[in-house]
């Protein structure tokens, strides 16, 4: 289905009615399978049992980055192509991306205490992820600060695109600066450096997180379309009451 056909909110709402339960079910199965395999896998030779935290920490970090990237693409859709669902997609993704970013920070802190001896260090990777979380909060606050959805969409799109500079900083921070955080161990030019017994459940769990994100994102987009319908109905009802 071409993207232009989804510009019709009625068609979009019909489609998500099928997609949301299907994606939610897929997420449940994949995350369950990933975690069962992950807890059956041998402990890591360095981290021991703490490696189990990886199955939620790493996928939530990937989702936090991917959600912001999606918001940046949607922001281009708002500013350049003026796609009617672009700002809906961007607005709906922000709280979900923020929640996964928070989960990444919390699980990272809980992993850091026994492994590094500290919940938090001002390391380039940790600090740039904290900046990503603050950017999410900034975009959410901006959406809430402006009543008119059209004006809010433009302002939020500009802030999102300016903040996108932080996404490559998060990704490459471990290579550009001296970092306590380990380097990339899955997406590497010479292939993953994780043992297959740990990598397979990680990838299954990550696929489940992706399905979960899209299920939540579509549900939040549906809610945003309904919120705008409610706003229009409210304005029309008020206008009609005044005319009587």
């Amino acid at each position, binding site marked *: 289905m071409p993207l232009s056909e989804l510009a019709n909110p009625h068609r979009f709402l019909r489609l998500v009615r099928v997609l949301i339960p299907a994606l939610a079910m897929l997420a449940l199965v994949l995350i369950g399978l990933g975690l069962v395999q992950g*807890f059956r896998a041998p*402990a890591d030779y360095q981290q*021991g*049992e*703490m490696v*189990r*935290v990886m199955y*939620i*920490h790493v996928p*939530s970090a990937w989702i936090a980055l991917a959600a912001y990237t999606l918001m940046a693409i949607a922001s281009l859709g708002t500013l350049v192509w003026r796609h009617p669902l672009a700002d809906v997609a961007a607005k709906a993704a922000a*709280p*979900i991306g923020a*929640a*996964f970013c*928070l*989960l990444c920070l*919390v*699980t990272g802190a*809980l*992993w850091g*205490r*026994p492994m590094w001896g500290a919940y938090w260090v001002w390391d380039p990777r940790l600090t740039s992820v904290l900046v990503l979380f603050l950017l999410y909060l900034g975009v959410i606050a901006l959406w809430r600060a402006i009543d008119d959805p059209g004006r809010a969409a433009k302002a939020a799109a500009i802030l999102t695109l300016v903040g996108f500079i932080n996404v490559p900083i998060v990704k490459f921070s471990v290579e550009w600066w001296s970092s306590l955080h380990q380097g990339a161990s899955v997406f590497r030019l010479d292939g993953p450096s994780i043992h297959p017994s740990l990598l397979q459940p990680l990838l299954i769990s990550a696929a489940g997180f992706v399905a*979960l994100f899209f299920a*939540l994102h579509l*549900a*939040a987009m*549906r*809610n945003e379309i*309904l*919120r705008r*319908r*409610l706003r*229009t*109905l*409210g304005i*029309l*009802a008020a206008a*009609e009451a005044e005319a009587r």
Partner: protein
Amino acid sequence: MDLGPHAGFIVAAYAAAAIIVSALVFWVVIDYRGLERSIAKLEARGAKRRSDR
């Protein structure tokens, strides 16, 4: 299953994941129900968009 000497940290990480994901699911479901209720209330009072007329 023996999660070793740092079991508390592992359990806390999974509890945080469960709380945050549950909160997200709760948020979208409650928001959806509230919006549907409000729209139905306005439509029952005769409010209709031009495209619905």
